């Protein structure tokens, strides 16, 4: 058993029992990262900083000052600003950006004793579902289909975070989710990921994509690990005006709690054409496991589900076009030359943004432009309310909702990259919770015929991550998912 195979909880327990030091644990991860460069999960390794943080952690522990994550080495999605450590959003426009401040979420992880291993790859500005829009090249999924050497996507946008956790290159990682960017990569890599209720985690210091949808959350090896990380990442922050000023429970206490008597909603609309039979079967397995655990299964309807993605592709690009207006080449980031000010702006942004980012800025600018605002943007916001109302109605009948996470297993790199809509459909089951602001968790529950992991999603009421963690704990226990990607890298 290598130290990198440990779960976060087991590693923290081992550190507390003085079985090994944080420096030893961190060194083991640094070695694993160096041996796994072919996956392209880390775009910046910070081994010196990691060892320094680990040594300080060991010193704190010796003084009896251990925090909840004391000594645990983690990876950070390169969308979180890290003080003095380059933060790029995997874009050319921020290729050399070095923040002079730390995001609230990461600062809370360090406050609780965690150690930073480096910065993880993502789709550029978190826009993508396969990690292929990264300026630094795609991440390769540690998982391969049985008997195949074909490179698969780890999903996106948090593909680096998911791949690093799946390949034991960190004990857990930060991630963000605007339409499914935590949960779809978690499903594709056999890991656990949760997007909490909108407002649980501060967005301060996280490079903005679509501010009314963006939420941070962890990707981890187990449900309990995800609960540990989310407890540390959550909390009120006056620097984010949408941060919720409410107490954060210790989420770990809900993992393993009985789910007897809970009503679990099964939405009939969470099926798409050509969805593999294995995903339908896994969903039925999940229903059976929860019944066995004492839950009552309730059929529900979320009738506006099919309109969620089209609404999202107005709301998110509209907000993105506004948020990304800040990249003007004047105060930070890339600047290209031009004959006059407008040309400098235009050349800087043409050179600094990738094709998918430009596509979304253009859509956003179009739907917000004079004459189209009411027809597109306001219409999408009204449909967004319909989607939120669907969930409000569902909560009169059930306590949590069980769905598949994604409509397929991991697909090959390059397979969907020429068809934007086919790529967007990856988020068909996850995007609804972003629009409604609800917590959603994906956990691995089985393998398909090719030996690739599949995920189930648990959606909760606003601020009811507690129930989500209890239900996820019950599914995790029943599924007994222990498969790991066979090491080839």
């Amino acid at each position, binding site marked *: 058993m290598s130290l990198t195979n440990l779960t976060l909880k087991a590693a923290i327990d081992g550190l507390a029992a003085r079985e090994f030091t944080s420096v030893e644990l961190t060194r083991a991860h640094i070695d694993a990262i160096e041996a796994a460069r072919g996956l392209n999960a880390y775009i910046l390794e910070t081994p010196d900083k990691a060892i320094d943080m680990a040594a300080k952690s060991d010193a704190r522990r010796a003084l009896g000052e251990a925090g909840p994550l004391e000594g645990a080495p983690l990876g950070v999605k390169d969308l979180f600003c890290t003080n003095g450590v380059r933060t790029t959003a995997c874009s050319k426009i921020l290729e050399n950006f070095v923040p002079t401040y730390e995001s609230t979420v990461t600062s809370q992880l360090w406050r609780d004793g965690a150690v930073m291993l480096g910065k993880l790859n993502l789709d550029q500005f978190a826009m993508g579902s396969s990690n292929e829009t990264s300026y630094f090249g795609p991440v390769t999924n540690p998982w391969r289909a049985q008997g195949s050497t074909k490179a698969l996507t780890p999903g996106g946008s948090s593909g680096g975070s998911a791949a690093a956790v799946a390949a034991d290159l960190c004990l857990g990682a930060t991630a963000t989710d605007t339409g499914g960017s935590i949960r779809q990569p978690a499903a594709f890599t056999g890991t656990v990921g949760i997007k909490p209720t909108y407002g649980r985690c501060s967005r301060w210091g996280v490079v903005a994509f679509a501010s009314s949808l963006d939420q941070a959350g962890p990707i981890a090896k187990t449900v309990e690990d995800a609960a540990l990380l989310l407890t540390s990442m959550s909390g009120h922050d006056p620097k984010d005006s949408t941060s919720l000023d409410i107490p954060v429970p210790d989420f770990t206490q809900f993992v393993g709690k009985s789910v007897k008597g809970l009503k679990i909603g099964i939405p009939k609309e969470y099926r798409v054409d050509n969805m593999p039979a294995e995903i339908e079967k896994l969903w039925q397995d999940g229903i059976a496991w929860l019944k066995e655990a004492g839950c009552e299964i309730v059929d529900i309807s979320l009738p506006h589900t099919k309109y969620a993605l*089209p609404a999202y592709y107005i709301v998110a690009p509209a907000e993105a076009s506004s948020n990304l207006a800040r990249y003007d080449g004047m*105060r930070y980031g890339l600047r290209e030359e031009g004959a006059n000010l407008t040309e400098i702006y235009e050349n800087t942004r043409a050179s600094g943004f990738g094709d998918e980012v430009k596509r979304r800025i253009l*859509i956003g600018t179009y739907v917000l432009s004079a004459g189209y605002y009411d027809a597109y943007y306001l219409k999408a916001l*009204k449909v967004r309310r319909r989607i939120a109302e669907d969930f409000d109605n569902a909560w009169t009948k059930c306590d949590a909702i069980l769905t598949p996470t994604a409509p397929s297993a991991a697909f090959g790199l390059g397979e969907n990259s020429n068809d934007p809509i086919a790529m967007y459909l990856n988020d068909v089951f996850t995007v609804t919770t972003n629009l409604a602001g609800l917590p959603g968790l994906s956990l691995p529950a089985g393998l398909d015929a090719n030996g690739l992991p599949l995920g189930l999603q648990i959606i909760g009421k606003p601020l009811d991550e507690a129930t989500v963690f209890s239900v996820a704990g019950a599914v995790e226990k029943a599924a007994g998912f222990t498969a790991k990607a066979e090491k080839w890298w």
Partner: protein
Amino acid sequence: MAIDAATVRKVARLARIATPEERLEPLAQELNGIMTWIEQLAEVDTDGCEPLTSVVAAGLPLREDVVTMGGDPARVTSNAPKSINNFFVVPKVVE
């Protein structure tokens, strides 16, 4: 509503993204594909429906109108593409 090359040129200008002439037509087709897919929103009955702009029910918090940060121009300009003596250097915009 079909997007043509002229619309792409106008939108790209509004978005301040230089777009070469030969990219306008392919981009128009791409964006049309996406917007046609989005058109299905017209099927949804939204009569009497208020737009949902925020999922956070609470009002926006207010704080004291006081300076909380500042006085560190070197830090502020540390990522500037061009700066001199802690000032941003920008192109000449007035003749």
